[in-house]
């Protein structure tokens, strides 16, 4: 029997926590009402929904009325970027989205949609360590964009952006600032009482809640134009009958992450550092992407010179280790990561990059096994590369 596979792709998605399953189950059973209904069934559902909203709000340091449930990160990012652009247009101002070149595709594609709809997108460069070029931000702010969007933690590299400094500059300039918190939320200490964000996206499935639930924080005074149109649920900003079980799951997962964050951050950081040390000892020319920048504890992006990432991932999978190359892609396209490219990593090295991402379930024993298997897989894939180049 092959050993139980080791899951090192927590940045792609995480298992649903048992506590979360317990919390949401009643809403998949007897408590099935529509929260907009005035009867007892509806009131019970609304109670669950609003308690979940309060949990999310509390852990983020915002008011419950500022939390809008969405279907996840992609929807939250789109609602923020396009919603702000449309609101600007409706107020007679130009649509312009200023986003970092290393953003998640959800933000990049939404910014591109702004261009297609007659507005403008501006990509901000990053330094070789992945951190935002602040001078470029200042220049872009002078153009009075409808919104600036810079993610907190990069999903591929774990590099942390100086969110406080960026938010402060946007606030001073009077420009809306959105941040995709998807990859970082729950992994590091964070509160919106300290960072003056206008908009923030989170999602459940990176935190032990199921896929299909997330939230967008819209601070008081920020106007967004809805991207889906319907009833008056969630003030019409995000209409549609609410996903109560999902919201309850998100509330529970966020609360768990919030409660456990300090301990988990320390534990996962230690495992990540151990893994990095063991792997770099075994494969000395391994490069850690963004190694000189502050990074979130759960992501280890490795450039493996002479190794095709696609083949390496296949070999790792067959050896019982699930990892990925940056963000998930279903077609196997051999495109170098836009994140690594923006950091100035040459295409050959970018195509060698794999992401190992740790989570709540990761153990020291698993890290030890990965440290044994990974170098063997690297050796085989390097031999393959040599065979193919002959």
């Amino acid at each position, binding site marked *: 029997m092959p050993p139980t596979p080791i899951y090192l792709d927590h940045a792609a998605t995480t298992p649903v926590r048992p506590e979360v399953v317990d919390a949401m189950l009643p809403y998949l059973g007897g408590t099935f009402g529509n929260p907009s209904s005035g009867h007892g069934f509806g009131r019970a559902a609304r109670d669950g929904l609003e308690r979940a909203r309060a949990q999310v709000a509390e852990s983020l340091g915002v008011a419950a009325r500022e939390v809008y449930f969405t279907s996840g990160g992609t929807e939250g990012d789109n609602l923020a970027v396009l919603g702000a652009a449309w609101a600007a247009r409706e107020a007679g101002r130009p649509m312009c989205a200023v986003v970092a070149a290393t953003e998640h595709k959800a933000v990049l594609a939404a910014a591109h949609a702004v261009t297609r709809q007659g507005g403008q997108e501006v990509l901000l460069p990053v330094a070789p360590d992945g951190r935002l070029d602040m001078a470029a931000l200042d220049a872009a702010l002078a153009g009075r964009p409808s919104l600036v969007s810079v993610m907190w933690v990069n999903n591929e590299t774990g590099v942390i952006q100086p969110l406080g400094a960026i938010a402060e500059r946007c606030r001073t300039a009077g420009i809306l600032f959105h941040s995709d918190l998807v990859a970082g939320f729950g992994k590091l200490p964070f509160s919106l009482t300290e960072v003056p964000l206008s908009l923030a996206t989170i999602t459940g499935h990176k935190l032990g809640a199921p896929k299909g639930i997330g939230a967008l924080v819209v601070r008081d005074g920020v106007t967004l134009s809805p991207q889906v149109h319907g009833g008056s649920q969630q003030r019409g900003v995000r209409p549609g009958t609410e996903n109560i079980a999902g919201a309850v799951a998100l509330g529970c997962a966020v609360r768990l992450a919030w409660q456990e964050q300090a301990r988990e951050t320390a534990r996962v950081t230690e495992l990540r550092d151990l893994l990095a040390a063991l792997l770099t000892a075994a494969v000395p020319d391994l490069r850690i992407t963004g190694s000189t920048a502050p990074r979130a504890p759960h992501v280890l992006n490795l450039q493996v010179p002479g190794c095709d990432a696609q083949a390496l991932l296949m070999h790792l999978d067959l050896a019982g280790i699930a990892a990925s190359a940056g963000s998930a892609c279903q077609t196997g396209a051999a495109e170098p990561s836009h994140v690594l490219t923006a950091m100035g990593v040459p295409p050959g090295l970018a195509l060698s990059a794999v992401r190992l991402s740790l989570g709540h379930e990761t153990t020291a024993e698993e890290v030890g096994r990965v440290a044994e298997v990974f170098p063997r897989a690297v050796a*085989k894939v390097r*031999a*393959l590369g040599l065979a*193919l180049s002959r």
Partner: protein
Amino acid sequence: MVANPSLPSGRRARVLVAMSGGVDSSVAAAELVARGHEVIGATLKLFCYGDSVPDRPCCSLDSINDARSVCQALGIPHYVLNMEDRFSRDVIANFVAEYSRGRTPIPCVRCNSFTKFRDLLAHADALECDYLATGHYAVAREGRLYRGADPGKDQSYFLWGISRSVLPRLLTPVGGLTKAETRAHARQLGLVTADKPESVEICFVPDDDYVGVLEQHLPADAPALVPGPLVSTRGEVIGEHAGFARYTIGQRKGLPGGAGEPRFVVAIRPATREVVVGSADELLGHRVQLAELNWLADPLAEGDGCLVQLRYRARAVPATVVTVTEDRLDLALAVPVRAIAPGQSGVVFADDGQVLGGGVIA
């Protein structure tokens, strides 16, 4: 059916199976799983149409998903291997170059020789696979290659160029089946690909429009694509053509009609951009020279007899070796063959259907 290959160590054999997402490779994988092998499915991504061309039955995202579904149903892993760069270099570039030289290439032969049985084999080696399997209708047995059992589907013609050293490690689970049997097998197993339509086009040529592919890869004023003279076999100019790459030896369509006997393309002369038109008789050949030789058995010698097939789906005809060198085989044909086209393959068979080798028609 091929015997169950067992390893001296008693270990289960590990097999990498190339899966296009079609029914043949699906059944091949299923058959190998049924024999108890450790099977790994791989779909090669060889090219990208871009956004402008709708999904094709082969090599598209749908095909990748079909292969993945079949593997999931069989309980085996599946991976997508991106080989676009190498396929472009080894197969598409040659396809374009051959048409530019007035020849009619078969990209599937080079895909087998280079992409599947060299590059994919390197992957099989890295994965410590004992065997490489495909859904080809051909039979690999005891280090030899034979025609597939279904005469209507036999694909051995396309496999002459693979390295002889691959044969002992090649498994062809559907080679002994007819297409109907393969489909019946797939239905019985409930495979999602059981009733998938056959792909007969060249995978990277959408809508059979190969000239469109040439136009994409060549400058607009490339000699192969610009007008040139249509001449008779006696040298008279009888008209103009729209680019010699649009013509193939034996072609009748697209030539100016005449009152007399039907006319065919009998030669293409890229140096003068001439397309030569002649009668059906002038299309017959009694000799053929093969280049880029590859042997899958011991090479033939002068005076040896064999069968040679000069087109896919053409009948193999008896032939005698006139001369043979390292890189050239000159065959005298016992019966004249119509429309022998440079660039196509000449495949040499033994009487029992064994593929002895082959080459590209010079």
